[in-house]
Every structure is written in C-alpha cells, then in structure tokens.
C-alpha cells in the first residue's frame, strides 16, 4: 500500500448502546470492540468524582450510585431545559453524549494505534433540526471533525446494500432501537440508494418495553407484599429494576419465562415473568410501530411506490420474537433480521469511507487539472476521464481495488423527515404555518415561495421558521415547533402587499438555511437558523474545555 487515505470512522450513537466501525484495507466494514472487548458499549455515563466512566461499568454502577449515572440521554437531545447536575456543574445532553463518543473512539484508537479525527455520526431519521444539531455538537465537544450526520436507516441500508448482492429492490427498514423507532422505505439499486420516505417516533424503543416490565414487577411486588408503596420512588430500586427488566426482556426473547427477584426495603419477592404476560403488557407499543409503518406505506403510495420487496429488521429490539411474528402477520412477508446491533455503525463507516475516497479523488483531480479543490468539488463530474484516471491511480496507490473505488461513488439520496415552513396569515387572515419544504422531499432541496407584507409602510418582517410533521401545505401553528426566527428590515414607504421571497435550502445533513428577499429593492437577508435547543456560546466553550480535560474510562 502506498499513500494512506484519511480514515473517517462511523459511530452509531444509540440510546442504549453505541458502537464504532471503520472500513478495513480489504474494503470491509468492521466494528471495533471496546477496551472490555465488547462490540457495543452501553451509552451510560457515570460521574465518579473527577473521573467520567462510560459503558458497562457505568451501567452496573447505576445500582449503587443511581444519582451519579445518566442513561438514555439520546432521548433528551434537543431538549433545551434538560440539565444533569453533578458536583455543582450542569451538563447538557450534548456534553453527556460527547463522553459516550469519546469513550468509543478512545478505545478504538487504542486497538488500532491510530488517532481518530474525522467521524460520521448517525441519528434517527426522525430527528428534527434541533436534535441533529445537538448530535453534531456532541461530536464537536468530543473533539471530532464531524464530517456528516447521517440517518440510521440509511446507514443500515448502505450496509445491507454492500453485503446483499440483491437486484434492484425496494426495502422497508424497520429500525427498532433502544429508544427510538424509525420506519423507512428505501430503493436500493446497484448504483444508488434512495430513501423514498421515512417516519417514526423517537420516544418509542426497547426502553419502553423495559419500562412495562418494571411496572409489572412493581405491581407484583405490591400484590405479594400487600404494600401500597411506590417502590420506584427509591432511586436504587428503580435502577435495579430497570437493569433486571432489560435482562429479563432479553431472556424472554429466548425462553418462555424467567424468574426475577425484586428487592426493596429489606423485602424480597420472586416474580416469574411469562412471555405471554410480557407480550400482553407491551402489545400497544408494538401496535404503534405497525401504525407508523402503515403511515409510511400510505406516504409511499403517494409517491408511486405501491409495494416493497423486503422488510429488514435492524436495531437490537427487533430481536424480540413478537416483532418478527407481528410483521409477518401484518404484511405477509418474511422479515429479514439484518445485523441488528452493528448494521448502523458499519453503514456509517462505509459512508465515511466513501467520503474519504471522494476527498482523495478530488485532490488528485485538482492536481491533474491545476484547479483548486473547491472548484472541483463544485463541478464534480465522476464520469470524466480525469476522475477515471484518478480512481485508477488511487487504486494503485492505496491497494483498494478500482471497482471498490468506483463503487464508492454510488449515489445516496435521503429525504427530510420533517416539513419546514413559515408562519403567515392564511386566506381567513388567521395565523398558520405554510410549509415551503414538505416532509419526505429528497435532500438537498431548494425551495422558495413569495409572501406579502400585511400593511403599508411595514418596517419589519418577522420570519418564524417552523418544523412540522405533516405533508400538508398548511398546518395550524400549535402543531408545529418554532426552530428559529429571522427579521427582515424593509425600506420605508413600501405599499401593502409588497412581495417578499423566502428561500429555504436544506442540505444533505438536514441543516437548514434561509434567505429572505424583499423584491422591490432586492434587499436580502441570509439567516442561519440559530436553534435555541442546543448548547451555544459560553456554555459550549466551557463544555469543550471540560471535554478536552476530561479522562473517560
């Protein structure tokens, strides 16, 4: 092997487990085990004095130090008012997630003896602007150059497409993870992976199944002891039951029943949990995934996709046998369980690999054509002779086969899981959100629309940028979330109904850029959405400084 490409790692930052992968010299995506030699690391952070412990040890510590341990932080990503307090300091979800990222990367560095700088991090397709931004910032706090945030189902589809040499096919990715559920329809072709539409619920995942077991155990404890105490008030008991619940859920995926001990306040109760019971108390959760799936099929039909060829199951929670059974029952098709724990990290790694090949190719083409990298990036044309030559050279230099290099040029097209619009007055002169970009539109996308000022001599236009979940053009303000605002100052003396052009541009990663233009004088304002839901400014700098100094174990 001659020159070395810059490696870009893929990280699956999960609600319950995280993992990291890279593409090895044979072009194969490989998950890197952590220092405990496990392929997935619990996304649990334990603040132990000056140390921060992440992973299995942290998870086990929850029993003993429930108030020093944070789990399921991904569910709070993008929530502005979530604060974890420890030792007089407040930690935002981004910073806690950064510790998880640091841990998986640090362990991988040790295994490979190589510094990790560039990463691709995955997030649920269903994440909105705020949650995505928070994920990216988490990566930055951890000290990485976050090359891209990509959707988990898309990553899974990339991994699937790289292994299964299937013909063209429409695949439904049913991704039930630890904390989130994503359902995505993807068209996989040899030369392109195209997301058709996506939906889900980022508050629906394996943890909810665990919670139902916890509830059952509490109930059983009360029945057997005759006590009416809410034993979950006790943090130790809560954590203990939470861990037992997760374990018994896994056992029930294999066996018909499992014994569980509930210990609280010196009393010990033995509960035998039957699989049947487990199914009963979680039936509604499973039904919700089915409803969401039908929703997506409905959307897909509108886009002309009336059927799909395969359902692939990813995410650890799809190991529960009832999931597979229910899907078979509902859709009359045998679902494929595909590498549930690792597909996402591997897909991210393949994506990163593709990015680094692209980087390298562009550099080579730039050298050949005496142009700058920026120029080449702008007018990228992979079918040109320069590109072919560069690919051949690169294959010679790096030892990666030319076909592999060329195959990395496969096109990946994603869609936005949310609609974006602005608050305007509708025909009835009531405030409503008008969506400029509708959900499930392919990204990147540019869209613009013209709006009009309300009164003569209007000085300012307040643009309220809203995120919503429907594919309808008009939605009520109260069902949408405000993700940012911008002010367009107008010149004096404009008549009423002066037109204002608002352009939305949404990039591949789901980052939104807004331009507003007053048409009479062509006054233009560029607005980068400043979300309030993520850590910023002084807080961010402090978090970064803390992270640099922190030792993660």
């Amino acid at each position, binding site marked *: 092997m001659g020159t070395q490409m810059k490696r870009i790692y893929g990280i699956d930052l999960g609600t319950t487990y995280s993992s990291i992968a890279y593409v090895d010299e044979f072009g194969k995506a490989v998950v890197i085990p952590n220092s405990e030699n496990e392929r997935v690391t619990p996304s649990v952070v334990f603040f132990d004095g000056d140390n921060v412990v992440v992973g299995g040890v942290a998870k086990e510590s929850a029993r003993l130090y429930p*108030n020093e341990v944070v*789990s*399921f932080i991904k*569910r*709070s990503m993008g*929530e*502005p*008012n*979530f*604060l*974890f*307090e420890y030792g007089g300091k*407040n930690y935002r979800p981004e910073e806690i997630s950064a510790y998880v990222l640091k841990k998986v990367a640090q362990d991988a560095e040790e295994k490979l003896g190589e510094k990790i700088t560039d990463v691709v991090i995955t997030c649920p397709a269903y994440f*909105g602007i705020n949650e995505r931004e928070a994920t990216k910032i988490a990566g930055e706090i951890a000290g990485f150059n976050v090359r891209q945030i990509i959707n988990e189902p898309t990553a899974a589809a990339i991994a699937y497409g790289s292994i299964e040499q299937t013909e063209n096919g429409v695949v439904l990715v049913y991704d039930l993870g630890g904390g989130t559920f994503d359902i995505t329809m993807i068209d996989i072709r040899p030369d392109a992976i195209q997301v058709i539409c996506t*939906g889900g*619920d*980022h*508050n*629906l995942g394996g*943890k909810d199944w*665990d*919670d*139902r077991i*916890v*509830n*059952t155990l*509490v*109930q059983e404890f009360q*029945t057997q002891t005759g006590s009416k105490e*809410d034993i*979950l008030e006790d943090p130790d008991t*809560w954590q203990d*039951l*939470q861990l037992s619940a997760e374990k018994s859920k896994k056992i029930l995926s294999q066996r018909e029943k499992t014994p569980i001990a509930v210990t609280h306040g010196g009393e010990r109760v033995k509960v035998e949990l039957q699989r049947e*019971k487990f199914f*009963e*108390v979680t*039936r*509604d*959760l499973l*039904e*919700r995934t089915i*409803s*969401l799936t039908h*929703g997506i099929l409905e959307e897909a039909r509108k886009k002309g996709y009336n059927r799909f060829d395969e359902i692939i199951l990813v995410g650890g929670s799809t190991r529960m046998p009832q999931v597979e059974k229910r899907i078979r*029952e509902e859709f*009359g*098709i045998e679902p494929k369980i595909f590498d549930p724990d690792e597909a996402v990290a591997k897909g991210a790694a393949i994506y990163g690999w593709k990015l680094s090949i692209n980087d390298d190719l562009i550099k080579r083409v730039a050298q050949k054509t005496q142009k700058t990298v920026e120029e080449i990036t702008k007018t990228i044309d992979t079918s040109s002779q320069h590109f072919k030559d560069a690919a051949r050279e690169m294959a010679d230099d790096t030892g990666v086969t030319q076909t592999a290099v060329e195959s990395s040029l496969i096109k990946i097209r994603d869609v936005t899981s*949310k609609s974006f619009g602005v608050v305007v007055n509708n025909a009835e002169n009531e405030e409503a959100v008008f969506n400029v970009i509708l959900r499930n539109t392919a990204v990147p996308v540019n869209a613009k629309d013209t709006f009009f000022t309300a009164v003569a001599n209007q000085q300012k236009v307040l643009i309220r940028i*809203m*995120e*919503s*979940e*429907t594919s309808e053009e008009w*939605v009520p303000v*109260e*069902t*949408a*979330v405000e993700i940012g605002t911008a002010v367009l100052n107008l010149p004096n003396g404009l008549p009423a109904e002066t037109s204002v052009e608002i352009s939305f541009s949404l990039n591949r990663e789901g980052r939104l850029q807004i331009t507003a233009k007053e048409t009479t004088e062509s006054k233009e304002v560029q607005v980068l959405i400043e979300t309030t839901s993520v850590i910023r400014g002084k807080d961010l700098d402090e978090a970064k400084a803390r992270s640099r100094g922190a030792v993660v174990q």
Partner: protein
Amino acid sequence: MDRENYYILLELDIDPPEKDPARIDAAIKRMQANWSRLRNHPTKGIQAKNYIGLIPEIRKVMSDPELRDAEAIAAIQKTREKQGEIFAEIDRHLTLHLSKGYISNQEIAKLAELHHIDEEDIRARIKLMEEEKLVELDSQLGLRMAKGYMTQEEVSKLAKAHGMTDKDLKKRINVPIRKVGSTEKTKGKSLDKSLEKVINDNLRIVGFSSLYEFLGVPETTSIELLQKTARKKESQVLKIAKKDAMVTASGILAGQCSAVFRDQESRASYDISRGRSRLKDLEADIDVAGIDGKIRSQYFEILVKTAQDLGMDQDEAKSFIKNYCGKQKYTIEGMERKKLSKNQIIAVAASLLLLCLLVGGGLVALNAMQAKGAFQDVASRALAQPDLEKRLVIYRDYLSYQDPNKYTEQVNELIAQTQDLIARNKEKAALDALDKQVGELLASNQFGAVLALWNQHLKDYPKGSQTAQVKSKIKETEEAYDTFQFKALETLHSADTDVRIAAYVNYLASHPKGKHKEEVTKLIWNLGEEYFVFLQRRIDLAARQENWGQAIQYCEAYTRVFDNNRAKQLSREKETFQKRLKDQSSYEDLVARATRHGTDYDAAMQEYNEYLSLYPQTTARDKILEQIKGLQVLKYQARINRAETDMRSRLSTSKRFMEKSPGIVLDRKTGLTWTLLHSQVTLGDCMDYDFAKDYVENLSIEGAQGWRLPSAKELDDFYKTDAGYPVDSGLVFWTNKSFPRYADGAMSERVVVVPGESGAQEFQMDSRKCAAVHAVKK
C-alpha cells in the same frame, strides 16, 4: 384541565408567598435537576418531561412580580380546594360512624388523627352533613333510577340506610318499582394492573378520566367505531410536531386504545378494571370502618350500600366486603355467630308404577255356526301355508265366497297383517342384501356410495318398519364419513395451500353440519394469509405474463372463500385486472386497425395517438407508446430508403461517383470516400458545430468508421467541379476549417461552405449556429 401551580410545583412557601428571586431561582434549578433525573423514570418520566418543558414558562411567571403574585393567590386557593377534597373523604368516613346513630369522642379523635385536622373541624362537618343528608339520598336514588326502574330490595335498603320508612322514600322515586331486579353479570378478566397504571398515569397527564373520554366518545360506542376513532386519534397525534409530554402521553394512550379496543373481550377487561379501580375507595372505607379491628353491623350495611353505589348487586357487595375483611383480619359484628343454614336436601323416593295388562275377552258364538266353521277352516289352512302370498289368496278367496259376516272384518284384519308381514320380509331381505353391500363399500371407504344406497332404500320403503334404524345408520355413516374426510384433511399438512383450501371448502360443502365444521372453518381462516401469499405469487406471475384472465381467476379463488381485508384488497386488484383485460382486447383491436394501414405509418401513428387522447388512463399506454416509437423508426427507415434509392438513381449515370459499399460513395477523381447521404437527409435536421464534430467522430456506416469533417476545398471539389455530387441548393455545410477562438473560448467562428451553381461560397459562421455535415474519409 387547569395547569400546575408553580408555587406548589416548586415547593415554595405560599403563606406568606416566597418573593426572593434568588431563592426562587434556586428552587427552579433544584427542581430542574430533579426532573431531569426523573426524565427516564418508568412511571414518572413523562410527567418529568412535562415539567421540564414548563421551565421557560415558570421562569417567565416567577420573574414577573404581577404574574407571580397572581400565582401565589392561585396557590392559596388551590390548597384550599385540596382541603375540600380531604373533607369529602372525612365525610364519607363520618357517614360510616354516624350510621349507628351516634359518633363517640374516641372515634372523632381517631379520625382527626387520621386526617391530620382538628377535632373541632370534624364536629363542624358533622353538623353540616346532617343538612346534606337528603341531598345525598337524592343523588343515590338518581344513580339507581338511571336504569329505568328500582327493585323493592333497593328501596328497602336505602330507606333503612337513611333511617326512613319505605313509604317516605317511595315519594322521592319516579320510576316503577319491581320485585326482582338482580341481573346477571358476566364475569371477565380484568386488565393487567401494570397496564392499567400506564393508562391511568397517562390519562392523568392529558386530563381525562378514561380512554373513552380521551377518544371523545360515549362509553356505549360500538367496538368498530372505537377502533376507527382510535386509529384516527393515533394519526392526529402523529401529526403534531411539538413532542411535549401531553403529546407523548397522547401517543401512548392512542396506542393503548388500539390495543384495548382490539376486540370485545379486551374492551370488557378494561371496563372491568375501571369498575374494580373504583373499589379502591371502598377498600379505604372498609379500613376506616375497621379502625379497631372490628366492623359494626351498621357499618357493614353502609359499606354494602357504598359498594352498591359502585354498581355491585347486593350479594356481590356483601361477598366483596367479607372477603376483604377476611384478608385484613377484621371481624364483622354479628357475622361470627350467625351460622348460615344449610339447605336440607330432601331425597325423594321414586314411586313405583304398576302396569295393568288388559286381556281381551273371547268371542261369543251364537247362531252363525256355519260361518264359524268356514272361518276356522280358512284360518287353519292359512296358518298351515308358509308362503305368505298364497296365504293371502286363501283369505281373499274366503271373502269372495262368503257373504259378509261377523268374520269378514277379522279376515280383512288378517289380510292387512299378512300384507304388512310380506312388506317387512321384503324390506328385511333388502336390508340384508344392503348390509352386505355396505360392508364391502365401507371397507374401501366409499362413504358416498353407502349413503346413496341407504337413502335409496328410504325412498324405496318410505313407510318401512326399519326406517328409524336406517336413519340412524345414515347418521352413523355420515359421522364416519365426516371423521374420515376430516382425517384425510389432516394428511394435507404439507400440500399446497390451494389444495388444502379446496379440500377444506369441499369438506364444508359436503358436511354443512359436520362435527368438525368449526375446526375446518378455523383451518381455513388460519390459512387466510398463507393462501393470500400463495395466490399473490401466482397473480404476480400471471400479471407478468399479462394473463389477466388467469389473474382474475386467482383473485376470485380467494374472494369466494374469504371475506377479510385481503379479500377486499384482491377484489380491488381484480377490478384492475378486469380493466387491463378490457384494455388488452381493445389494444389488440387497435393494433389490428393500425396494421391495416400498412406502410402509411403516419395514419397508423394517428390511430394510436387518437386512442391515447381518447383513453389517456389506459393501462396499455406503455405498449402503445412502444408501438408509436416502432412506427417512428419504420417511418425514418422508409424515408432513408427512399432517399438512398433516389440518390442511387441520380448517381447511376455518373462516371465519377461509385457506391463502393452500401451507403458509401467513392469519388474517383479525388480518391476520397463520402457518405451516400449527408446529415440533413439522414437526421432531417441541422446541427451546431460541436454536435457536428461528435457526429462525424461517432459515425459508423456498415461498420466503416474514421469519418471526419471535410475541408472547404474538399467540399467545393466534391460538389462543384467536374459533374459534382447532386445536391439540393441552399444547404450549408460545416468544414473543418476554423478561425481563432474568442478570448473567452466559449465560441469560435467556423467556416461553412454553401455549394451552388457558380461555385461554392465560403463564409464564417458562429459555431453555435446550425448547418449540415457531409462526412468524408480517405
């Protein structure tokens, strides 16, 4: 639902209200950390999320002095209301104690301790309650009258409980009073308790009391409507982007609605659970009544009344209270002495029935001795004759020779008996023969044939003596046949789904009342999905082969047997196929019509285009477009052929030009080869310079490549000098000659040649303009 009060939520002092911003801020931070910690709690998580979401609003209210003061006032009011709720509970407990006619000081003291209030407050409540008693009575009556009638039992109970006579009470009743009123209740399974808790916790967050209320429908709503409403609710919730605690809880509840209202049984479980949960108050009341380990009999009556208020009937109420007391080890006054009397079982001796056999008296012979002699003779002869037919002849002879006498009737009787005997014997003989035949048939499992034989026999002997027996044999056979066929079905496990379905359906048809009807129906039902998938594959195949008739048959195969969502789906597919079938035949007609136009491709294309404009939705659209494309190619080919033929005839007299291979012309004068036709003819259009260059480079005629643009001179020679190449005037041709590029390199001037009578003209033209190409090579 009114919102949380922030003073109460932040656990701040309200009397006097806390106003120190620093302390308020500290309280907010403390609670924020606390709620964040509980964010993933299995039961408190959503509530915590709700509170976290409130923080900006809390900060706003608590930092504005005016809003904050209003908040403090609201907090005081709320606390008072809360106390009111406590009093409601105290009242219930007081009712219990007062039912015996008085309340002791000791009891008052205990209640005060239990509710953490002053004894004086309790005394004040007692006074108030006396006045409210009648109001309470009316509300209890209202509950019972709601069903449209009251039972005498209920009237007596209520009267007793309120210390009134039945008569006085009845004055307040405006519905009929019935004697017997206890209706039977179905006992079902209640919902899992932990699920019930999940539902109730989330209902509390959204501020509803039941899933019915959550869906906004009455409790009497049909299950179908409930399911529909639940689905609607689910999609409504999904559309809300603001995923706050309310929406999260609503999502969970909508999911629960789908699960709980999935069928009647599960809905009933939920209803039962709701009823049971109301019993918790009752249990709490029993605990109060049993405050000293003993339930007075007056208390017991009141507890029963409370339980009845909750909808139990009297027996249920009593047994519930007794059970609970037993569990809690409370003794019920009066119960321990009162032994339940056992029902004495009286054995009834069966009486014996005596049967009297009546013996008919002998006949009295008087004067007709002769007749008697003849009759005796006939009788003895007949008895001696074993052949019954012949015996009949003897009897009939007697009747024809003797005048009617007193024996005539007897003989007629004998004839009838004999005839009957003959018929029986015949039937018996037939049955014997049949039995033998049946035995053989059954040995080879030919149940159908056996049944046919039995049924024929019944027809042959409609009044036979063995009819009952035969019918029972038929029944037996049918059952055996049923079992046999059912067993046969069991062997079909590994058969193809269609074979199995056919067999099952056949079974049901041949055994409409079969023993295994239910099982087989279930088997069919279970195969619904599998059969669907099985057929779907075949349908797909048929559709790929465009065998729509076959596809329709497959759809019908399913819908004949099933009436489910899949059937609906297939009915819809069938409609599509029918349309396709129809479209296919009209497409075939169309092709036939178009073909009749022969080489008039334009007319044929017009046929297709007209059809498309008439039936833009036709499923044959793609095929029609394909046809049109084919015709365009043919048309093009025809045009080229014509042009070639034309050119060849023009060149036939030329000594200079020779077509050395099809489409390629050799210029003997210059030695250059040219294409037979120039681009204006072959493409029917001119092109810009860049295109022209690509065109000649990629040009291949009969495998010959390496074409290039001619120079101006070559073109001029070719067309002009010495009996030049035939050309239509006015054409402009690109040459390979160019002038220097413009500075920006975007365009260049190119030289073109216009052949004409007086020599070719050369001039410059913008390379983006349009001209023809006549390709040349060495």
